[in-house]
């Protein structure tokens, strides 16, 4: 890219495509954040604008719009930018590139329709199954079809990036894979390996069951297949944030990435370790032996390694940048960092929250201590620090640098943008602190009515009322912050006739690819090792689950979640009575 040129100058067609992905992402963020606010105010009983029965529609929408649509549309945009910019070439065929974007949009629209139709009785479509869609909760088939089409879109996106890399490789034989492209390719390898699980769960079991082609399924099997994908999907959300921390943050700090080889090692470790751990989400599931759960726990603890390596590399890069800017001393260099820059500050604060949330993740991953917090409010506390901040705040901060590069326009309201990222930081700490504390005393997650009659939670400090107030205040701050972000993005998009402050160049790493062993770029080798690890971790548990409950389960029928409650109770009671009589 010529010096001083923005990405939009060098690749106008690709910039338009990435902008389209970002707008889909931002639209999802707005809708998802709105449902988040409704939820926060409803379950704390501060403001109730919906019936409690509708809570699950809101909760499903909040989850799917944010953790599927917002995150993944944003990451495909970031990945497209990273591949195009680092290979210095557009995709081989832009029609294909628009094609996968179209598939993703179609899938997201179908799923969104299935969820949002739950708000009206005039359309006979429901999908109140939450983001995890555990069977026997059953959604309308459109929900599952939409998810499949969306995931296929991401697969084709990955194929597009591999195709670009192969074309580049043909023109540059013997060259090391540029680091941003390496990160994209390894992330997509992890995504291919892991999303096979959810594809099998939906296509082989859940979708035929929702279409009434099969009469039953094995919920333990579909849950296990979901979590085979469900933990790596966390890294699918997180690794684009890592990419921005490794590629953009050092530049914003005024320096260069400390180590390219360490970054490569980190991404390979995620390819190897992120999938054979999913059973740690199922510690309380019956039907899976304790031994398998213990193995999953051990594997999970290894995942700390790439996160700690990342913390070291990123902080070292930031320190290098600060010292380039005149920072001195053991800690005084921190004051030399560009705290005025919302892109830098947002990412730095996101990293800080990520470190804290990582420690809470160790609690989730520990088999014995997990029993204390399983299915409590602690778990959404953890996901909001990790995906809701490490990923989401990094994406928003990254957008403050990327959107000007993609539009050729200067960011509107730089000072307000700084306030926005700081608001998010404060809001998330208020909200998640309340969630963690509530979880420790057993307040359940995923319910509109967390308080029970004749029972009081013994909160360590304060009261449930205080926790509720803190959660509602935090949730409201987050909503305001999200709206401010969207407003600034819209204003920036229309800020024509201006130029970005920063140029789009990314400086090379201090320790470049020439310092890393060539074997790190041998993607086939890492795929093979990852596949072996997955087979070792999952073949015995899956065989055991199928041998106990069968492929299609012991006659498990659907539980439609949006039907007349009285008739359900009556039917269940009649079935119970008839079973006793028989």
């Amino acid at each position, binding site marked *: 890219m010529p010096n001083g040129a923005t990405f939009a100058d060098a690749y106008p067609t690709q910039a338009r495509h990435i902008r389209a992905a970002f707008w889909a992402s931002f639209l999802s963020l707005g809708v998802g954040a709105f449902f988040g606010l409704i939820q926060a105010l409803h379950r704390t009983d501060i403001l109730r604008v919906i019936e409690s029965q509708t809570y699950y529609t809101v909760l499903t929408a909040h989850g799917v719009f944010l953790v599927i649509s917002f995150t993944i549309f944003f990451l495909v945009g970031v990945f497209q930018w990273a591949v195009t910019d680092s290979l210095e070439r557009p995709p081989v065929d832009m029609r294909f590139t628009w094609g996968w974007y179209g598939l993703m949009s179609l899938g997201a629209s179908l799923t969104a329709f299935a969820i949002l139709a739950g708000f009206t009785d005039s359309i006979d479509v429901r999908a109140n199954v939450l983001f995890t869609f555990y069977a026997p909760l059953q959604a309308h088939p459109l929900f599952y079809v939409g998810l499949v089409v969306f995931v296929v879109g991401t697969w084709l996106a990955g194929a597009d990036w591999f195709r670009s890399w192969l074309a580049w490789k043909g023109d540059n034989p013997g060259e090391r894979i540029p680091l941003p492209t390496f990160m994209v390719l390894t992330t997509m390898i992890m995504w291919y390996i892991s999303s096979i699980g959810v594809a099998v769960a939906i296509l082989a079991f859940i979708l035929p069951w929702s279409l009434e082609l099969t009469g039953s399924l094995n919920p333990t099997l579909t849950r296990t297949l979901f979590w085979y994908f469900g933990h790596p999907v966390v890294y699918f959300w997180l690794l684009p944030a890592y990419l921005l921390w490794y590629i953009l943050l050092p530049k914003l700090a005024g320096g260069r990435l400390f180590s390219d080889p360490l970054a490569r090692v980190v991404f390979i470790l995620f390819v190897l370790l992120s999938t054979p751990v999913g059973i740690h989400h199922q510690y309380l599931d019956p039907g899976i032996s304790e031994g398998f759960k213990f193995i999953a726990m051990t594997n999970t603890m290894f995942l700390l390694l790439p996160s700690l390596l990342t913390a070291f590399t990123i902080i070292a890069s930031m320190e290098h940048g600060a010292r380039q800017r005149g920072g001195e001393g053991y800690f005084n260099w921190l*004051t030399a960092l560009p*705290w*005025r820059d919302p892109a830098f*500050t947002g990412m730095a*604060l996101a990293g800080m929250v990520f470190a804290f949330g990582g420690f809470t993740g160790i609690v989730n991953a520990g088999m014995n201590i997990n029993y204390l917090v399983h299915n409590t409010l602690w778990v959404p506390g953890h996901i909001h620090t990790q995906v809701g901040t490490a990923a989401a705040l990094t994406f928003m901060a990254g957008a403050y640098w990327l959107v000007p590069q993609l539009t050729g326009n200067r960011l509107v309201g730089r000072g307000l943008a*700084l*306030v926005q990222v*700081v608001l998010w*930081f*404060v809001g998330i*700490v*208020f909200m998640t*602190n309340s969630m*963690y*504390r509530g979880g420790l005393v057993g307040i359940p997650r995923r319910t509109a009515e967390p308080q029970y009659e004749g029972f009081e939670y013994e909160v*360590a*400090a*304060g009261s449930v009322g*205080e926790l509720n107030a*803190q959660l509602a205040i935090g949730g409201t701050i987050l909503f305001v912050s999200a709206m401010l972000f969207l407003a600034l993005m819209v204003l920036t998009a229309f800020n024509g006739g201006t130029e970005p402050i920063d140029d789009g160049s990314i400086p090379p790493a201090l320790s470049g690819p020439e310092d890393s062993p060539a074997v790190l770029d041998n993607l086939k080798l890492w795929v093979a090792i990852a596949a072996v690890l997955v087979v070792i971790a999952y073949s015995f548990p899956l065989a055991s689950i199928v041998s106990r409950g069968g492929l299609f389960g012991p006659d498990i029928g659907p539980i439609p979640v949006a039907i007349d409650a009285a008739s359900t109770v009556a039917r269940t009671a009649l079935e119970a009575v008839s079973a006793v009589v028989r």
Partner: protein
Amino acid sequence: MRLRTSPAKLLVLVALCLVVLVELRTALAFVGVSLSIGATVAVGVAAIAALLLWAVRPAGSGE
């Protein structure tokens, strides 16, 4: 008015103060020290006020 630090750094420091305050109350509860909401707010107001006073105090005064 000249500040001893930039408004951006001051904003981040105030945010960190709030965050430390929220988390400190929880941490103290684990070691048997419970701060009421009133006391927490008072400590917070005092900490942020001290921070702001430090920021607006001319550099070199009191030396």
